[in-house]
């Protein structure tokens, strides 16, 4: 059963979910961080993942992103079992994550940060590099073009030659999102993307994420800021104490007594 695309088929008979988490358990020594977590992320949604501190959200992000191998259970991406695959393997399949803390390449320029993320670069192998810039220049120029388009779209074109380490917290976030987009992801795993971002910039970031969703990028977003969740996320998965309480459309979230209890108790 595990690994079959059928398990990802939901009751309504819709297309299989892009990402399915199936009965995931994660223990750290005697502590159980997740016990029996299952949920689906449907294609074309921004699915929210919320819950009080210690609910197991970050553990789930680590497992889906490949940083942690679950004690048991499985993760399916496009119907294939990707449990235990490493982060770089997942990224090559189209599943790219961002981080809760700033993770820019600080001594690279903003433009270089984006260029690093471009997949299958011919100048990125030993022989490719040794053949010299004539060999990789054409592709490099095309990639610079793509990166500059993204920079323009996020209003950061004038920062391209700044070192990423010198940017503000919010700008670093934007760089991280743009960088993830350079991998041409089908699925973005966003770990609290709005933390430390100026409210004005957060609004713009939200607009960008909506546009990305409309362009077909599916997202799973861990977020604490409820106004952002309400605006962007539908449906919403609520976790508490290592389990999924509910997976619900946004408009029905407040009707779930368990959610209210978890937040009040948590």
């Amino acid at each position: 059963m595990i690994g079959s695309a059928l398990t990802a088929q939901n009751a309504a008979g819709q297309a299989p979910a892009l990402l399915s988490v199936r009965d995931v358990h994660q223990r750290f020594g005697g502590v159980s961080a997740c016990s029996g977590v299952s949920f689906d992320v449907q294609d074309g949604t921004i699915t929210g993942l919320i819950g009080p501190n210690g609910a197991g959200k970050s553990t789930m992000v680590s497992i889906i992103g490949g940083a942690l191998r679950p004690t048991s259970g499985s993760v399916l991406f496009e119907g294939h079992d990707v449990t235990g695959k490493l982060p770089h393997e997942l990224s090559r399949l189209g599943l790219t994550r961002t981080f809760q803390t700033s993770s820019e390449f600080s001594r690279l320029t903003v433009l270089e940060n984006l260029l690093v993320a471009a997949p299958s670069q011919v100048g990125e192998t030993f022989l490719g590099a040794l053949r010299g810039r004539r060999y990789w220049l054409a592709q490099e120029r095309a990639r610079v073009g793509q990166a500059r388009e993204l920079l323009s779209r996020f209003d950061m074109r004038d920062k391209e030659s700044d070192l990423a380490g010198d940017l503000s917290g919010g700008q670093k976030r934007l760089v991280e999102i743009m960088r993830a987009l350079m991998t041409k992801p089908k699925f973005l795993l966003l770990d609290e993307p709005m933390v430390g971002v100026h409210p004005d910039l957060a609004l713009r970031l939200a607009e960008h994420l909506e546009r990305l969703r409309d362009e077909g990028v599916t997202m799973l977003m861990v977020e604490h800021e409820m106004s952002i969740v309400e605006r962007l996320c539908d449906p919403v998965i609520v976790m508490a104490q290592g389990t999924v309480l509910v997976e619900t459309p946004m408009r029905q979230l407040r009707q779930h007594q368990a959610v209210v209890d978890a937040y009040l108790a948590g």
Partner: protein
Amino acid sequence: MSGAVQFYISTLLVYLAVDVMACWALNLQFGVAGLMNFAFIIFQAAGAYTAAVLTLGSPDASGNFQSYVFGSSMPFPLPLLAAAAVGAVLSLVVGLITLRRLRSDYQAMVMLVVSIIATTVVTNEIRLFNGPAGLSTIPQPLADVLNLDPLDYQWFYVAMSVVICAVVYFFVHRITVSPLGRTLRAVRDNDAAAAALGKDVTRMRMFAFVVGGAIAAVSGAVLVQFIGAWAPGGWLYPETFVLLGAVIIGGRGNQLGSIVGALLLPVGFAEATRFLPPIGRPGLIDALQWVAIGLLILLFLWFRPQGIFPERRRTFDGSGTPNRAWTR
């Protein structure tokens, strides 16, 4: 110029070439890829021993007073190439042990231990490379073919070292300016983020480690064939820190910086102190030299961590072509 001065200067130039190659290798590992290779000197030593035993001839030959393994008399440049190969293979083995699972601070500790183990083994297992006495009477490359007088041979060796340096530079430069170099720097700055963007971090680190190890070995081979002798006392673990200091002072991630660092620290420092009048008890100046090198590294890390020549900021022109170093 008198013969003696020429002799002195040509010797310094060979030392400089050797140290520049070593600094480029260490810079690729530490400055570009962020690897804390505290065992760096053993890869230089591995190259030196390889070149030595492959030129010394059979250890069973009559009149041979040294014991060593794999003795043969290969013609130049085979010992040099063999040294590079041994450096690469040894790096691969050490890298597979240290670079896969360990965090960088633990990598550094393990490297230091590897360095000490290597010295201990080579010192005590006399059958390997003649133990603490080391190998000597290592023949000089092409000396019998060229038949030059000693001074001319010195200058020939300088020229040869410069050519080998140029070849090494070709490799290091092509790597660092390419997208590959950019990915190595990304791994250095944030390995988890690089992995999340599809980069195989372990593979990238192994690559820098192996290429650096091969270059280190070449530098050792060039050195040993020049001085004709090699013993464990010449590659104790603190020697790594002299080269590391040179890379830090010159400027991490900058090839020009590595040249300046090599000129200042391993070459300049050792030579300048040679001419100091003897003070205190014998060996005091040597000991103070280590103190001074340590202080110099600390001062730079405090006041100018980017070094004399900081890493170049890589920009692109309007068409998306990377700007060359000299165009900005």
